[in-house]
């Protein structure tokens, strides 16, 4: 598997002098995967901000109008609660708009938010295609496929991640089962389901956008009104994914972050382990320390 790329450096592969000065890197992410990964950040931000501005015009979660204020929007209630209970927010000029002023482009701008949402949505769909092309060209798609035993392994990894801070505080050794794949089961579950959620978000978006011409699609999600609920909660899935995603990447360190920017990782042991597995050898199941490589 070891190939030497830069031609002007091309030594004999047996050359020991260069093997000593050379560094082994694993090509983890295709350039199109890296590009589309990062483009998701501004695009999803734009979609969420404009999406909540669109939500403002007709909130999914409503109640009977309050006899005093006339308010019927649960999001406005939350804003009112925040302004009443959160220190420093007591003098906020328009409590019902708090959520919309902090989590959207703003209230009362439906036309603009719709245009903004379409712009981001078309770019998001294009970006999704770029991602799929990158997965195929870089042959990374197989690493994302769920496999038998993933559910239990994902649970073990979840327990492991939860335990890291306590293990560090107690200076105890804390290990997880060694895996010989690109991702551990929990990562695989996340990196498989988030693109899937992106696809379903787009599908529910079309179901809401064209409920008559694409009536089969709206029916698939239980009709126009139900498709709106799907679309709304899929947004939260992205937000909930982002938090542990960012924490874990930073906890894991520079090599992992670099691999999604530069594409290369200098952690090569796991890919060799896969090679061993292919050749029929069982990879050793060793405990690793909490500080050891995982991402």
């Amino acid at each position, binding site marked *: *598997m*070891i*190939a*030497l*790329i*830069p031609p002007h*450096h091309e030594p004999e592969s047996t050359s020991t002098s*260069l*093997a000593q*000065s*050379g*560094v*082994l*890197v*694993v*090509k*983890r992410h295709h350039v199109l995967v890296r590009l589309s990964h*990062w483009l998701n*950040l501004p695009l999803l931000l*734009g979609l969420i*901000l404009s999406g909540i501005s669109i*939500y403002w*015009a*007709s909130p999914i979660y409503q109640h009977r109008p309050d006899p005093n204020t006339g308010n019927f929007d649960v999001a406005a209630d939350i804003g009112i609660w925040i302004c009443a209970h959160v220190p420093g927010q007591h003098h906020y000029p328009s409590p019902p708009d708090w959520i919309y*002023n902090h989590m959207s*482009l*703003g209230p009362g701008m*439906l*036309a*603009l938010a*719709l*245009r*903004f949402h*379409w*712009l981001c949505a*078309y770019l998001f769909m294009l970006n999704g295609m770029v991602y799929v092309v990158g997965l195929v060209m870089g*042959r990374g798609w*197989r690493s994302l496929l769920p496999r038998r035993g993933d559910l239990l392994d994902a649970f073990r990894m979840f327990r492991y991640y939860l335990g890291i801070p306590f293990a560090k505080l107690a200076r105890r050794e804390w290990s997880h089962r060694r895996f010989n794949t*690109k991702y551990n089961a929990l990562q695989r579950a996340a990196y498989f389901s988030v693109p899937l959620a992106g696809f379903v978000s787009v599908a529910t978006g079309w179901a*809401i*956008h*064209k*409920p*008559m*011409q*694409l*009536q089969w699609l709206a*029916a698939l999600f239980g009709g*126009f009104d139900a498709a709106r609920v799907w679309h709304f909660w899929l947004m939260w899935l992205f937000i909930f994914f982002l938090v542990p995603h960012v924490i874990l990447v930073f906890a894991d360190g520079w090599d992992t972050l*670099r691999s999604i*920017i*530069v*594409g290369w990782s200098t952690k*090569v042991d*796991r*890919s*060799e382990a*896969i*090679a061993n597995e*292919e050749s029929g050898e069982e990879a050793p199941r060793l405990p690793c320390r909490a500080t050891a490589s995982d991402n």
Partner: protein
Amino acid sequence: MKNQEKKRQGFLAERPLPTIEIAPRILHYRTRRDLLLFGAGAAAAVAGAGLLLPQTTLARIGVRRNINARGKEWLLDKALRIDDDVAEALYSPDRRVPTYAKSQTTPIKNNYNGATPDPGYIPGWNLTLEGLASGLSISLDIRKLRNRFPIHEQVTRLVCVEGWSAIAWWAGLRFDDLLRAYPPKSQAKWARVESSVNLDASGNPDPYFVSIDLSTARHPQTLLVTHLNSHPLAVEHGAPLRLLVPVKLGLKNVKAVTRITYSAEEPGDYWAQFGYSSYDGI
């Protein structure tokens, strides 16, 4: 059989990641280059956001400077035009919208944007047709409309641009029948459907008008409605005649239609003036 299973698994099985050996300085060079590119991309994204975000949003995050980019409106309008083209491509004159049972109807709210007009206009109401092949201007009262044309019933969903929807039981004549009885001039592609009784929020006259392409007007479920839930339309639902065009957003469903003008060129549209789509196909 077992062999086949193994082969399929083999196709889906994870492959080892490609490993290469490089000089450390190549790794450093690549890292530096890509970080610089990444930084440039991040800066471009921030600048793009600064150019695209509405001024009120920017002001809230502390950007006081007035960024009035001409490209902003152009880009957002471009996205809207592309979306309209997609909507037009998706439209099929033969595709019916889903219909419901009468028991499935839901309350439909009065979504008059301004004040609801005083019902005083109803007795003197009539519908004027212009841009006809005959060159005449035709005026029809509600009795003539109801007696002359077959009445069709349908229970369909009205979808508002705001996001709410309502299922209602409507009855009225087909727009297509009106078009056949009073054909528009041959080059006509559009109808401007207008209500002169529309009011703004403070109760002043604010004529409401939308553009409807004739392909949509000829759709068998596009009606000129006289009844809702078997009762004549109430004033808040556009008595005595409203446009019902279920393949378009609610805002195209003009209440209290007073005039229909056919034209070759696309006529103006009330909500398009405020940055909404003028096609509005759903």
